[in-house]
């Protein structure tokens, strides 16, 4: 909310320095997001035009003599056309500093020394378009000679104050002044609501037909001449960011900003039948708001209708038909109270948020309606209106309930005691009633604090006023608890090891455009239907990600200069709910995956596979088993399924060439995906005591059918008891081994736990191995020998 410090000072004496007010507002819970400073302005006084005559040497100039107080007069030449003798106007004297760095120097205007300048709103840094063309017009009630800048406090900054939604009372200048007055310990000067009633609002009838209109105060004011509002009001409105229009409209805005109660003024002559009906809008009902927009309503909105149909959109905006205009003779003040959520729902449905709706949606107190109407009536009377007695319908305002503070509740929440005397003092300063006669301290919030309902609310008020700095920091002793961190620890370990293995962690958006899934499907990849966002802000956010791979492929393509490229992401992936007869509302599926990508360098697949196996070994405590598999995103013939024990924990493979093409990455790019929830808990590996006897290394090359898997050969080799390790180290396909065959070379380490192996024993073991491989795989040895 824009809060001109100039306006705040009308109600409370604040420290000279704006910084102190800004800091105090923050400690009260109203942080100031921005301080809009105003330019330095000096040497402007209020003057009265005594005489006005044409300039002898220029058709477009006039010469004024100005009474500027204390018997002084100034002779000023002006080109303005809206000047007349007798007007009260701001006058910049020689040496005056004005907006935009303008300084008034003595100057000759067509041969005559001009002793200053008559100024417009723009020259004192007010929006020129919001004020009269030409010279600013002031009320004759302002004493001639008054320092114009000081009088209107035109150099005071405007604060952008952040008001939390529980405090609609502070969405007003008086509301914030009240907080500051309580905090600084100074009195609040409440604005006047004095009026001399002239008659009753007896001819008006208001019928409430909706439960969401809590209270409706109405009051007739006649005889107001429509004209610009007084300068002091226009200046305050303009500083608050509200464009002045005419005195009546300005008064409704002024009273709202001042007190927080939005008001609506009807042109009473344009209310058919002098009868207002407050009711739910009808579906499809059409209505033109005063911004000239025709709107189609539905039952979420509330309208104030007369006998000719809707004439105001309750709590949000008035209607064009009964809008106050230049010809308005009689106005009906409406000050109502609405159910907050209802106004919020209607305002969101209509996509129409106004100063009124942002206040009403926070559920204003009933009493504020009467106070707002009275203030507006007073201001209209000041404008020459004759004010009738107000009427009201709906619930009467009632005082908020008492809240009991059991002893110890303050200490229990804040960790320290506030003495009862101090509690009473701070609460009374905020307008609370305090009763200390019973066993517990009881407090009654003031009418404007309908957010204070329970003891904790009162404790916050006390804490706010004594200052949160009084809370002593204390490190708590945490009791043993059943809840554990296993999931987080697992994710941390996975990510940390991946980073250690040379992969960089990415975080990509989990909402995607539809094009991602389309691209995969167009490539012939089968994927689950991703969950759809019903209300995305843009098409880029419509679908939840079904896999982490698309983003990593995009990064790999984008960063093609970075090779070798190793990246991983650990995050949630989603699939739409599958229709299931057993489940009334099937849930979308959400799982945690880790996907890693390796592009470039030698043998991306081999490296990625080794890295993933090392990762699995480290986090599960066991060697994963590798077998053939297929997985969407991976090449059907170049994919390994990974098992920890019996559990399938993921896949590693070469990217599906169709995706490689679609993303424009090398077809050697490798991808791995681990299903994090499937990973078995870490199992402490048993200690295998090393043999005391020397190992014997033997290399074995065999020719096997092309489809034989090295992993299966290794498993077979390991069935020989003397084998400690068997590691394939070379493979060959080509003319030397014949079509449909390949050669595999294995390094085999033989070792006994009981004796040093003799050559004969080692040879016998190798012979057994060869026999096994021949039997199981049709393997034929190519050459054998020790390490070269």
């Amino acid at each position, binding site marked *: 909310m824009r809060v001109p410090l100039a306006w705040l000072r009308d109600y409370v004496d604040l420290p000279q320095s704006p910084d102190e007010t800004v800091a105090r507002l923050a400690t009260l819970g109203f942080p100031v997001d921005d301080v809009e400073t105003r330019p330095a302005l000096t040497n402007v006084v209020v003057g009265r035009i005594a005489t006005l005559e044409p300039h002898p040497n220029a058709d477009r100039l006039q010469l004024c003599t100005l009474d500027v107080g204390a018997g002084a007069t100034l002779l000023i030449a002006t080109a303005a056309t809206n000047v007349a003798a007798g007007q009260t106007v701001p006058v910049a004297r020689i040496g005056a500093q004005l907006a935009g760095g303008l300084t008034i120097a003595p100057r000759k205007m067509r041969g005559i020394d001009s002793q200053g300048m008559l100024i417009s709103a723009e020259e004192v840094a007010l929006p020129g378009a919001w004020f009269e063309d030409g010279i600013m017009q002031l009320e004759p009630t302002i004493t001639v000679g008054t320092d114009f800048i000081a009088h209107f406090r035109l150099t005071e900054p405007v604060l952008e104050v952040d008001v939390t939604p529980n405090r609609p009372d502070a969405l007003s200048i008086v509301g914030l002044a009240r907080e500051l007055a309580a905090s600084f310990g100074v009195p609040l000067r409440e604005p006047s609501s004095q009026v001399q009633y002239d008659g009753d609002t007896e001819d008006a009838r208001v019928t409430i037909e909706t439960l969401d209109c809590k209270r409706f105060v109405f009051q007739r004011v006649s005889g107001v001449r429509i004209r610009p509002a007084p300068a002091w009001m226009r200046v305050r409105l303009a500083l608050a960011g509200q464009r002045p229009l005419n005195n009546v409209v300005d008064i409704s805005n002024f009273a709202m900003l001042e007190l927080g109660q939005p008001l609506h003024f009807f042109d009473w002559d344009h209310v058919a039948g002098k009868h207002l009906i407050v009711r739910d809008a009808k579906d499809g009902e059409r209505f033109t708001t005063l911004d000239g927009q025709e709107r189609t309503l539905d039952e979420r909105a509330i309208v104030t209708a007369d006998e000719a149909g809707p004439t105001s959109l309750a709590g949000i905006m008035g209607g064009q038909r009964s809008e106050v205009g230049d010809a308005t003779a009689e106005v009906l003040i409406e000050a109502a109270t609405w159910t907050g959520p209802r106004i919020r729902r209607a305002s969101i449905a209509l996509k129409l948020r106004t100063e009124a709706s942002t206040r009403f949606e926070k559920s204003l107190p009933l009493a504020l309606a009467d106070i707002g109407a009275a203030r507006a009536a007073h201001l209209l009377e000041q404008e020459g209106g004759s004010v009738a007695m107000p009427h009201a319908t709906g619930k009467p305002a009632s005082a908020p309930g008492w809240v009991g503070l059991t002893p110890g509740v303050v*200490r229990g929440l804040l960790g320290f005691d506030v003495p009862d005397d101090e509690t009473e003092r701070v609460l009374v300063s905020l307008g609370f009633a305090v009763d200390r006669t019973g066993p517990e301290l009881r407090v009654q919030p003031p009418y404007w604090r309908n957010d204070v309902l329970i003891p904790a609310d009162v404790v916050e008020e006390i804490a706010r006023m004594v200052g949160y700095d009084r809370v002593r920091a204390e490190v708590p002793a945490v009791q043993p608890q059943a809840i554990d961190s296993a999931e987080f620890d697992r994710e941390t370990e996975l990510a940390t090891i991946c*980073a250690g293995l040379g992969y960089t962690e990415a975080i990509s958006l989990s909402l995607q455009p539809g094009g991602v899934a389309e691209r995969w499907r167009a490539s012939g990849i089968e994927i689950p239907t991703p969950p759809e966002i019903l209300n995305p802000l843009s098409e880029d956010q419509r679908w939840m990600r079904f896999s982490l791979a698309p983003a990593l492929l995009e990064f790999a393509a984008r960063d093609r200069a970075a090779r070798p490229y190793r990246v991983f992401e650990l995050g949630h992936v989603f699939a739409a709910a599958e229709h299931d007869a057993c489940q009334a509302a099937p849930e979308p599926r959400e799982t945690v995956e880790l996907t890693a990508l390796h592009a470039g360098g030698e043998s991306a697949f081999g490296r990625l596979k080794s890295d993933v196996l090392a990762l699995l070994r480290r986090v599960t405590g066991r060697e994963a088993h590798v077998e053939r598999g297929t997985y969407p995103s991976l090449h059907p013939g170049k994919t390994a399924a990974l098992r920890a024990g019996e559990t399938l924990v993921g896949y590693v493979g070469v990217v599906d060439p169709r995706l490689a093409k679609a993303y424009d990455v090398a077809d050697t790019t490798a991808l791995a995906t681990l299903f994090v929830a499937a990973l078995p808990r870490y199992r402490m590996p048993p200690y295998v005591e090393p043999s005391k006897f020397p190992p014997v290394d033997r290399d074995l090359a065999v020719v096997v059918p092309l489809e034989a898997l090295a992993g299966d050969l290794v498993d077979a080799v390991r069935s020989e008891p003397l084998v400690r390790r068997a590691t394939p180290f070379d493979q060959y396909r080509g003319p030397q081994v014949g079509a449909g065959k390949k050669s595999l070379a294995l390094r085999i380490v033989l070792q006994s736990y009981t004796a040093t192996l003799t050559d004969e024993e080692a040879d016998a073991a190798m012979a057994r191995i060869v026999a096994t491989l021949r039997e199981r795989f049709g393997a034929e040895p190519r050459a054998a020998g020790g390490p070269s």
Partner: protein
Amino acid sequence: MPPERGSNTRKKLQNARSSRIGRSHLHMTTTGMTELEATLAALSARFDEAVANASDARALDDARVAFLGRSGEVTAVRRAIGALPPAERPTAGKLINAAVETLEARLAQALARVEDAALARSLEDTIDVTFPGPPASLGALHPVRRVAIDVARYFTRHGFAVVLGPEIETDANNFDALNIPPDHPAREGLDSFYLRPDLVLRTHTSPMQVRAMRTHPAPIAIIVPGKAYRRDANDARHLFMFHQVEGLMVGPGIHFGHLKGMLVGMCRELFGASTDVRFRPSFFPFTEPSAEIDVKCPACAGLGVTAVLRQAQDDNVQCRTCGGSGWFELGGSGMVHPSVLRGVGYDPAVVTGWAFGCGLERVAMKQHDMNDIRAFIENAPGFAEGLA
């Protein structure tokens, strides 16, 4: 290479010596002896010349092989003893052995000389230590995860558990159970993505408070790092997907002071030991009293201008990290609202508790003095490595 070669030579010398042990004394005729002595003297002279000319161990080894090797000159002389009368043979052998000993000593001296010279040269040698080696194979955690781990380390040290939860959340857990009924103005700024009328992408990590308390009796002390989503457009300060860490501690006698104690400690861990933390009244439907957490800007020590700029006495240039205010907002916190406690089956008359939430990107941005949050999802090459 030369030192190895040298040590090789040394070994061979030792072998040669041991093979001579046990030779006997013999007599010898004068004429034969004179001739032999002359031969040996000539040989010795040639040997000395070869050794003197040798500048490295390899050349010395060549000399050793040429003179003392199995088919070297000395062996040839030894063979010639056979032509001497038997009586002279022992003396001749003695002479030859003496000569060999001398040659070997000289060779050893020469070897020591070239080795010393080689060492001296080696010590003179330099490499360009600034020339880059092959790239290291070390990746990096994303800075957001790094912050989450740092926060978790602090809280687990104090006995807290770290729990994770789903990103698809029920509307009831995300809002209603947190005291935010439908059409409440507090839903402003928590604009959510809906998957179904009753399912949202969680707008904060706070629904995990509800899940954890429903499944675990008090006392409870947890933190919850994770993703949250708000229906916003991405810009320099907002991402529609971002990360938060939630904290919750509920039990008998837990008060605001404990919240302050834990958060001051957390901020000192994240921003430095001298970090100050300030609490300001605020409003969240699920806490009462509520507080905004402000951290004294670590970049400018709360002065609003950086040290370098202060030296230049240019007070008009603001600190970028805090925007010149000297403090920045870290997140929200407060005492858990009794309605929330009641809703999960806790008795607010018996237990009280606090909760807080703050953005992990925000922490990382303040730590690294970054001003555009979008960098966290761009994953530009070198980004994570640079901040690791």
